[in-house]
């Protein structure tokens, strides 16, 4: 039992001392995940908003596909991106395998359907409320899309945070395409997996504490946003 307490004490020590190795790993994690979520939002928000606003052939199919892709198993995404980026794959010449870029791509593939599907739901609800008013005012399609995204801003921020939470905690896909190379592609989750198996519980637990804190902060942000939205009757 004492090894647990030793590890816990040591891990807090690492966090408090801002251990450079620890900081490097956290930094890379954040860079990869924030970039992936940003790109996922860039694609997922307009896609989901269009699916929730306009009637076009294949709209229902798109929604079904997006919803199905939400539950995509990360290891399968990892495998898929691996095949895409491997030397013999279609994107092989770009030599991206085992780089942070590869991890960004993998996380993006996982998060984009989540952002798109949740956005579609939010925007569809808002659209059913606004559609007649917009039609009456003669609002054009692009303005409609932008207004719906803007009016859904609180809910959509929550959506982005959900995507962030999913991406930052993800391990299966990034370990396959990133390779968990020290100082290159080692992020929080993959380090925890590796260090735990090596018996280096201090570092693993320190990262665990950081991940938990991030999860906590994200949830606090979601609740805070919701409270703000409700206060202004913007929810």
């Amino acid at each position: 039992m004492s090894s647990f307490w030793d590890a816990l004490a040591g891990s807090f020590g690492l966090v408090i001392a801002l251990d450079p190795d620890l900081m490097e790993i956290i930094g890379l994690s954040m860079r990869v995940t924030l970039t992936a979520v940003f790109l996922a939002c860039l694609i997922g928000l307009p896609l989901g908003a269009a699916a929730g606003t306009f009637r076009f052939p294949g709209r229902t199919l798109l929604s079904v596909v997006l919803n199905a892709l939400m539950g995509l198993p990360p290891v399968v995404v990892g495998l898929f991106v691996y095949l895409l980026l491997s030397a013999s794959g279609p994107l092989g010449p770009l030599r991206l395998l085992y780089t942070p870029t590869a991890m960004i791509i993998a996380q993006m593939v996982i998060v984009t359907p989540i952002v798109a599907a949740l956005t579609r739901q939010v925007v569809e609800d808002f659209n059913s409320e606004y559609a007649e008013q917009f039609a009456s005012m003669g609002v054009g399609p692009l303005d409609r899309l932008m207004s719906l995204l803007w009016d859904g801003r609180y809910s959509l921020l929550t959506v982005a945070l959900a995507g962030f939470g999913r991406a930052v905690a993800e391990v299966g896909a990034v370990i396959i395409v990133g390779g968990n190379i020290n100082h290159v592609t080692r992020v929080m989750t993959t380090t925890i997996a590796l260090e735990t198996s090596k018996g280096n519980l201090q570092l693993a637990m320190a990262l665990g504490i950081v991940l938990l804190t991030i999860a906590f902060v994200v949830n606090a942000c979601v609740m805070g946003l919701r409270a703000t939205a409700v206060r202004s009757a913007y929810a």
Partner: protein
Amino acid sequence: MRDFAFDMATGPSVGRQRDEQQPLLEACNIGFTARGEQLLHNVDIAIRQGSRTLIVGPNGAGKSLLLRLLHGLLQPSDGKVLWQGNALNAKAQRAQAMVFQRPVLLRRSVFANMKFALSVRGLRGQKRSDKILSALASAGLSHLSNRPARVLSGGEQQRLAVVRALACDPELLFLDEPTANLDPASTAAIEELVRDASARGVTIVLVTHDVGQARRLGEDLVFLQDGHVAESGPAQKILTEPQSEPARAWREGRIYLGPNTQSLCDFPGSKL
């Protein structure tokens, strides 16, 4: 059959003006069917340029539905809607504005709601801000300019919806029960806005349940009952001597239960 105010030609302002002056908006024998149920039957009305037309009738009569058809938000199953003699198109729709029964306000400030509506009409910069400020002032909403629109009281929301519609300079304004649930002061404020607009030449089509409001604002009146026009003509005439039983019941504050019942006691199955 044409249920048109002037067909009952007895009042002073009537006659066969219709042939000389083209109505601004006409419903030519329109019907509307949804899920196999006919909700509107042969509605044939004409709205004169610059007039105030009231649409009256019990809950579920099809008043809001008629407004949607006249505004082009829904397409009639039969007949057609004409704007200045031509089919209703997007350009004609832009010359109209509508205040819905439940006002739809964006999740933004009062000011931003106005800004959005005017931007859609292509207004920008200083001209837009000036217009917003004077519109808000006209509705007594200036002090609420930065307030989120959706936390306003019901009456304030209605006033905002009305000035937002009017700020777009429509030729014709539809108002769907704009004063339902409002206190007398807010009701008066909205009626004032409507009267001002009317004085500026805006054609008004207003749905109401309120006999007093009908007396104050009505010029022409269309009485709807179960999707049929029960009676139409000059408002004063219908308010003083209604020809149809449903309109008479409404004026006297009774519930109209159907052609063969005079009171609740006659209602089939009534234990009264």
